[in-house]
């Protein structure tokens, strides 16, 4: 089948790769150069944090998120086979800490996590000062931490590159630097020209707003820094009454600190206030960040619907896959699997029927 995919972010790439390796003729429209420079998924910290995210997102996202780690392990090993690129996936848990004045925030987090439904993952537990030091020797200005088993993050820069290569190898075609104007049943319009396909996927994220009026953008800002004096092996979340800032380690001494969350569709550069907040979080977590290089300061809009859950809009010859909000890596594999199953008229994972309903499928 001739398939057009609009948007080469996380969703578009995963779909293009899967469909191309099934033998479909896939064309991927990318507004960037192929590296995903403007994708929310490339800029993001790529956290897999079902416990931490459950605090706001609730039980269903938590339960779906708990499967993400296993899903990514499967996807990454297949991707390594296809592309030859090994993408790093850290999954030795994450640690939440708080400064003494904000100790209550951590107690509150612990209390709320204990109320979650039982899952395969081990329950969160407290680390004493010495246990914290044993796990992360450089977190030495905190008296305790809350350990969140099974959480982690993946190297999304390597992932984007590997998916690009795997799509190439599977025979997928790219239309780079192609701003898509609109996507409809069986066509993608770009640069004033209409391109016809047997089937079209709209994976433009926030960029799909012109065709999906229910979609809103939620601005996020974050920093990529390189800190040679800092050695953290796990993502760390700093709890605070007003911010929840996480610091995710990446290969080669890179760290991502983020992210603000502002109900705004402004794509303007990061503000001084946000930069100060993120940098204060870094510095108070570990003074070694004082000499870190700020490699990149980014702002982007996460695509979200009113319930902050992803959705699929389906019509003859068209599927719009969107609304991953701040859960691209946590829910992306589930969303893509659901989209593929619908495309093939296959029932999904009957054992988890109720969970799958967290992703609404709406006739377009």
């Amino acid at each position, binding site marked *: 089948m001739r398939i057009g995919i609009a948007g080469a972010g996380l969703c578009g790439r995963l779909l293009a790769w899967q469909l191309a390796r099934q033998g479909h003729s896939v064309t991927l429209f990318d507004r960037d150069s192929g590296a995903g420079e403007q994708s929310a998924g490339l800029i993001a910290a790529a956290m897999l944090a079902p416990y931490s995210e459950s605090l*706001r*997102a*609730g039980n269903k996202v938590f339960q779906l998120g708990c499967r993400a780690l296993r899903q990514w392990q499967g996807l990454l090993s297949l991707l390594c086979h296809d592309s030859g690129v090994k993408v790093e996936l850290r999954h030795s848990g994450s640690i939440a800490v708080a400064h003494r*004045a904000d100790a209550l925030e951590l107690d509150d987090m612990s209390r*709320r996590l204990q*109320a979650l439904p039982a899952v395969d993952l081990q329950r969160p537990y407290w680390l004493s000062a010495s246990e914290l030091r044993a796990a992360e020797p450089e977190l030495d200005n905190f008296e305790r931490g809350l350990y969140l088993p099974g959480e982690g993050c993946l190297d999304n820069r390597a992932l984007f590159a590997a998916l690009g290569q795997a799509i190439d190898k599977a025979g997928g075609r790219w239309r780079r630097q192609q701003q898509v104007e609109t996507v409809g049943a069986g066509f993608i319009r770009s640069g004033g020209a209409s391109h016809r396909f047997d089937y079209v996927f709209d994976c433009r994220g926030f960029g799909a707003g012109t065709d999906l*009026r*229910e*979609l*809103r*953008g*939620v*601005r996020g800002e974050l920093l990529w820094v390189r800190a040679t004096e800092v050695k953290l092996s796990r993502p760390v979340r700093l709890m605070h*009454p*007003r911010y929840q800032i996480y610091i995710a380690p990446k290969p080669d001494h890179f760290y991502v600190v983020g992210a603000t969350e*502002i*109900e*705004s*569709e*402004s*794509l*303007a550069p990061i*503000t001084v*206030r946000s930069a100060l907040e993120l940098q204060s979080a870094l510095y108070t977590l570990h003074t070694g960040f004082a000499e870190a290089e700020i490699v990149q300061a980014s702002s982007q809009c996460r695509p*979200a619907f*009113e*319930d*902050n*859950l992803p959705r699929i809009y389906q019509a003859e010859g068209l599927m719009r896959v969107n609304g991953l909000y701040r859960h691209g890596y946590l829910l992306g594999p589930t969303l893509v699997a659901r989209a593929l199953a619908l495309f093939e008229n296959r029932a999904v994972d009957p054992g988890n029927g109720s969970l799958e309903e967290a992703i609404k499928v709406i006739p377009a």
Partner: protein
Amino acid sequence: MSENKNSRVRDSDANDTWTVYGQTLHSRLLLGTALYPSPAVMAAAIEASGAEVITVSLRRQAPASGGGNNLWDMIRQLGKQLLPNTAGCRNAREAIALAHMSRELFATDWIKLEVIGDDYNLQPDPFELLKAAEQLRRDGFAVFPYCTDDLVLCQRLVDVGCEVLMPWGAPIGTGLGLLNPYALATLQHRLPEVPKIIDAGLGRPSHACQAMEAGATAVLLNTAVAQAAQPVSMAEGFKLAVAAGRAGFCSGAISARPTANPSTPVTGTPFWHQQ
């Protein structure tokens, strides 16, 4: 429901209105729109609370560079009176500028004036607040000043034309409840004609009930509802608590007494049972 015979209570509820800047309101619960798990939950919580006035914040939304999003449209569609705030402003100049921007954006001259003096506990700066309130009243705004419970500050705010006061119960987001009932009683005693909306620091429905029982005109909440594990039922809980407190205030509570005063005569009780 209208054919319900037992409508005496509801009738008196319906007549129990209050007025601020010429607008008559029935609900005594005002709700904020920040920090909810999702816009859908926010809308449901506002509905459950019965609030007629909801606050909106735009300080960080970068309105000048095309900010805002369809969350604002959703908020507008709820059909409530909007009360934009100046959260995040640090001095009178910033607050005044943001108030003018809000008036254009939300087409209302209502403004909840917040000028923060301390970054950590978000305590209001009384000096800058008074300055901003005076200017904004001159500029034709209906100013709702978020203030501490200091009598002299509140008197000065009234002097510059504020027709309502929003003293805190406790610092924003702490959920500590009324930290200083004495100060609120003083405000009630000295400024009885001025509506007082207890703003900030309430964590539980019982806190709202206590504030209303002490004579507050209304309460304003955000964190206590938005960050509850179940925001929608918590909104309902606060609605009931506000109504309970209000009924308590209006109905002449009995005085507390140090000894029991049984309502059933004990004349027939054998004396050895009264030891």
